[in-house]
């Protein structure tokens, strides 16, 4: 999780530096009275690098995907609750299709 934040902050810093370089480039164009068509090549490379880093951070920083299948290993019941007095076995869950894989394996 920490490495994703660092990569995101680094990408943001690279984008900020590219913005500053573009501002300087626009100032030079104003002096030489030329038209702006495209940032210089190194600024474009900086923008793409910052975009790639932020894209990686944007995908890595949010929580990992959790399985939605009830039979997968992530959703297995691995322990019983501590207070057995509140366990109820006679409820409407019997209407759901039963599967022996969901039962606790000793």
């Amino acid at each position: 999780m920490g490495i994703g934040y660092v990569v995101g902050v680094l990408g943001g810093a690279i984008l900020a530096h590219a913005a500053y370089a573009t501002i300087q480039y626009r100032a030079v164009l104003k002096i030489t009275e030329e038209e702006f068509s495209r940032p210089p090549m190194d600024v474009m490379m900086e923008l793409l690098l910052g975009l790639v880093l932020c894209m990686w951070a944007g995908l890595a920083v949010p929580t990992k995907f959790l399985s939605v299948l009830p039979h997968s290993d992530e959703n297995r019941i691995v322990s019983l609750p501590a207070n057995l007095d509140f366990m109820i076995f006679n409820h409407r869950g019997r209407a759901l299709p039963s599967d022996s894989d969901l039962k606790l394996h000793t």
Partner: protein
Amino acid sequence: MAAAGGVSTDDVPILQAENLTSNVKSVYYSRTFLSIIGGVVAGIWGFTGLMGFVFYFLIMMVASIGLLAKSKFSVQAYFDSWTRISIEGVFGGLMSFVLFWTFAYDIVHIF
């Protein structure tokens, strides 16, 4: 009782609702963040008019591929449909994109 017998064929699939909500929220966060970053990049680059929107959908397509890779290309294990990971949320971030696009363009090219 009748329901305790065999499995009916018209049952909806049983999914973990909490995990599905968490996954959809994660996709939404990623798309919103990439909309903002894409807007900043488009503004600094100097895109105007239709080129900016082309850039936005290009970024969203790359983000969809990245989200597919994040789910290890097995969508059925983490979502209830393909559109959850590939299409949903694309147009929701368009307003954030335009906001940061015009903001970055003004800072770099006009002010």
